[in-house]
């Protein structure tokens, strides 16, 4: 089953820490998102393998946009 990791808040992508195919554990850092003048750390909500990364550093995202898909 695929899990979509979405942006909880609108902001700018600062860093992407994973690439497709990477094994991740629940709680691993996926993305750093700058929003409301703060760095927000987006962590893996489940164990799995990264299927797709939808953003790159510098992108602006809206709340609810899909950032990473984990399978």
């Amino acid at each position, binding site marked *: 089953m695929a899990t979509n990791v979405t942006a909880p808040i609108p902001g700018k992508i600062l860093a992407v820490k994973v690439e497709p195919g990477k094994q991740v554990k629940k709680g691993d850092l996926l993305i750093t998102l700058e*929003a409301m003048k703060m760095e927000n750390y987006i962590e893996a909500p489940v164990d799995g393998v990264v299927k797709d990364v939808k953003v790159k550093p510098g992108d602006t995202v809206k709340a609810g946009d899909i950032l990473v898909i984990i399978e």
Partner: protein
Amino acid sequence: MTKIQEDIEKLKKLRAEVRLGGGKDKIELQHSKGKLTARERIELLFDKNTFKEIYTFARHQCRDFGMDKYRPYGDAVITGFGEINGRICYAYATDFTVMGGSYGKTTAEKICDVYRRAREVGVPVIALIDSVGARIQEGGEKVPQIFYENTLCSGVIPQITAIMGPCAGVSVYSPAITDFVIMVDKTATMHITGPRVIEVATGEKVSEQELGGADVHSRISGVADFVVKNDKECIELIRKLLSYLPSNWKEKPPRVETDDDPMRMDEKLNSIVPDDPKKPFDMYEIINRVVDKGSFLEVKKNFAPNIITGFARLNGETVGIVANQPKWLAGCLDINASEKAARFVRFCDCFNIPIITFSNSPGYLPGVDQEHQGIIRRGAKLLFAYSEATVPKITVLVRASYGGAAAAMANKWLGTDIVLAWPSAEMTVMGAKEAVSVLYYKEIQKIEDPNEKRKFIEEKAREFEEKFSNPYHLAERMAIDEIIIPSETRPWLIHCLKMLRNKDVKHPKGKHRNIPL
């Protein structure tokens, strides 16, 4: 055997019969689902041998649908009072082994009586729910009166409801009115219309747990305040939660002896807030280092984690903690966070529990979604709740407090008794760059070279920060009471609470205030 002896034997036999509820098979079935029976739950809840059951022999009077052939004693609910850690409480437990724990007229009458009696004597009510809902054969008669009794008890005595199985249909509104809802993971469900009705009405397919399980209600809907693993943990939590609360609105919460030194200064507090204002930190660490060791009991942990609410103790006295969590949504206030904190603040105010706020928020969450869903009226609840509260209120300014969040949580002007600022504290209408873009809008528009423009903005932002990114400009105007070293927070709070112990502030009288619901 004399007549009286015979009568005593008869009563003993009936008691033994009642103890078996719906019978051995039903009890086995209950256990096979990982659940305890209503009677086992009641026995675990109260101190040994203190529970006194009342209305044990009440029965339904229904004659329709063949109901006259099955009239079990107690009518599917156990009611009574007893002692929890030596303090009197009322409780009721619906018995799933008897007619699915359904609510008939007699069941409802027993429950209403529990709430009325408890209210009159000023003791908490614990509800242990495991029930299919209103009994169809009796047409739900009297059931709504439970909500009426709940409402009259609200703010008078603490009401705690544990959902330990199904809780369906209109009966979900009793838990919703009470102060705290605890759900047992995997066995508890709450919904107004069940999966079958939803499928018939809309074609949507959903499982009981996906619709209204503990996970859903603790994380998404915010109905549940606590999730526990099993029945035993549930009962332990109820006993623990009660230890923080007074028995009624006229009392102060009980003091608990502590061996944690009130003068303890935790040096680690001086290094939790990172120098870089963009880096988040973990607010839990601050809370846990300030309050009595191990005393923090979080409420609504999984719902709106951008704000933390819970009970703790300072030198043995109960306090309510409200704190922004910069690790989640940057600690923004959104609709869910505002409503969560507002309800918690109001509970504390009802029951004489001082409120300690750790303020650290960049503001209300911006966005069309939030505005359209009513962040104005729903966010207003938090300001309302703080303003309305007359219990001792102390705020610690940790780092950033901007805009609406500063207005809601960080200032003296909502009747806060003491505002203490850490040296890292800042409080402004907005962040430096945003402020500069408004203050110097015309000047910025005139600069054509993008490099020059950026330099201008950065320079003005630095000026703005120098002016506002510290607590001294606040101290100068008496907008805060004192600037303290973070390690001094615990002794400061304890001394302030002692000073505020007999605080007596009364708001103008009225029937009741009209919180923007």
